[in-house]
């Protein structure tokens, strides 16, 4: 099995499957070993039994590639699966200096009410660049950093999904 690493918040742990019989698995995660009985009972829902305890865990993709949001009763975890491919890209990005932070994306779906900058404008950190309306409420999106607007990807009146790139800075 290729080396798999999992990231959740501050934590980073390596996973390997030591044994697998039917729905039962022995898994080494970081320093701890788990004997679990796991079945996917519905789309996006797993039933785990571990030391007789029953866990009904729900998982949905969390926007970014290989990222999942996992929920168990009231607890939520954002987990990223770092596979060899991702690690390769990560290391390449670091060396080339590419940066996702140059893109301002919409955190929620909505309708673009106002675009407050245009191509070539200089923006300051915290400056409101776009206003989106959803469900009878307006929200202001701010730039996280200073920079020059390279491109505005949306027009007023557009309906956008969540995580849609709106504005690119140079």
């Amino acid at each position: 099995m290729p080396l798999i690493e999992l990231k959740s918040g501050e934590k980073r742990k390596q996973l390997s499957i030591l044994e697998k019989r039917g729905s039962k698995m022995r898994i080494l995660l970081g320093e701890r070993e788990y004997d679990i009985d796991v079945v996917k009972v519905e789309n996006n829902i797993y039933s785990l039994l571990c030391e007789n305890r029953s866990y009904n865990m729900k998982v949905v993709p969390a926007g970014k590639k290989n990222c999942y949001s996992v929920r168990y009763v009231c607890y939520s975890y954002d987990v990223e699966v770092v596979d060899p491919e991702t690690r390769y890209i990560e290391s390449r990005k670091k060396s080339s200096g590419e940066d996702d932070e140059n893109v301002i994306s919409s955190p929620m779906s909505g309708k673009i009410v106002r675009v407050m900058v245009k191509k070539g404008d200089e923006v300051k950190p915290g400056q409101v660049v776009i206003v989106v309306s959803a469900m009878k409420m307006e929200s202001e999106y701010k730039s996280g950093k200073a920079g020059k607007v390279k491109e505005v990807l949306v027009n007023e009146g557009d309906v956008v999904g969540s995580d849609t790139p709106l504005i690119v800075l140079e």
Partner: protein
Amino acid sequence: MVKKVLIANRGEIAVRIIRSCREMGISTVAVFSDADRRSLHVRYADEAVHIGPSPSAESYLVKEKIIEAAKITGADAIHPGYGFLSENADFAELVRSEGIIFIGPSAESIRLMGDKISARSIMLDAGVPVVPGSSEKLANNRSAEEIIKETGLPVMIKASAGGGGKGMRLVYKEQDIKSSLEAAKSEAKDAFGDDSVYIEKYITSPHHIEFQVLADKYGNIIHLCERECSVQRRHQKIVEETPSPLMTDGLRKEMGNKAIEAARSVNYEGAGTIEFLVDDKLNYYFLEMNTRLQVEHPITERVTGVDLVKEQIRIASGEPLSYKQGDIFQDGHAIECRVYAEDPGNDFMPCPGKVVKITEPMGLGVRTDGYVYEGYEVPVHYDPMISKVITWGKTREEAIDRMLRSLKEYNIMGIKTTIDLLERIMEIPRFREGRYDTHFIEEHYDELLGPRDHTEKTGDLAMIVAYLEYAGKRDLMKNGESFNSHSKWKIENRRKNLSGQ
């Protein structure tokens, strides 16, 4: 009796109204905008008519389109639900002038209660206590300042045409009076095109308690006891219960009678709600009347056994009330929790999107009134409320325990909701003890919205599940078949293959 009802609304309330119509053998007509072709009310009604583009100003709020839809389908009555055109006096008038039954009060009643200042003075005449303050729109800052001095600080400045917290300012100090007045007026002008404001004494530790009334065409009016609605964020209710933990038998009787008087003073007809502000010393003041069904009506239905929508339809059909005041009593305790498509962790930002999965709570003493289903895309255009959970118990404690159990069962995936926040509200000692007022949410902000404690183990298991989901998808892409497939046989086979590697 009415034969075919058009529901001039959408979402959970449209579905809820159709349910009662079904039980009465009445046909139903849904109307829908572009964004709502897939909405449950369209699928669930007997007939459905398209009325325009997604923005409500071009569909659900266009009186003429609604009337046309009623005519095309031969509907003999229109139920406005809540929100949209439900408190629009012109609409009520137009509907009736077209020979269609409007399931609600007269345009006149709506108008009288719609303007806060006229409602205030009618209540004063009817002997219903109102919050001390001005009884007229304020002409200029001079007289406003005088009234504020008379009433005594703190005071609340409110927009006359207002609602939703806009054009409101709370004033504690004398030096803030002038600037607050100006700010309130300017905001009111922006929001409602009318800068009239009025002054009310600000009640510390206020409770929002409302009374449900029913009135027929023959002057019979009854009340169906109170609802306690003090758990609010941004002046919007999120948890309601009945009976109110604050209420006494004597006060219930007194306030109930005042609610009946309030309804009588505007010749009210149909179902309506009188909202009161109650302070810690049980002084109560008329706040406003909602001349329509309330979002939180189900808790009253549960403890009194009265189907309020059926009563609305019977009243509009010209039948006398099915109940006398003596028939109404509260059996046990009911609580409602509102589920919004919002992210409480991100300042309650609306969270429209696709519902990947939904599991409703079930079993003894639980009712849900919702409208979203698996695969449904909650539209960005309308109110973020997607569902309500109502639980009942013999005692308040049982109702709370049942609500907690139900919220833990309630699983909505794909969008963020207020479910976790509601669970935490049920767990806060001051809520469980029934000692809360409208400041509850702000006073418990950290407990309600801070991070949850958890164990190392659940975090680890979450990582494992994320890995399994990832591995299942990866295999699906590679082989066109997932090792997490539902079929047991496929899993077995794949495991055999793996072990053979």
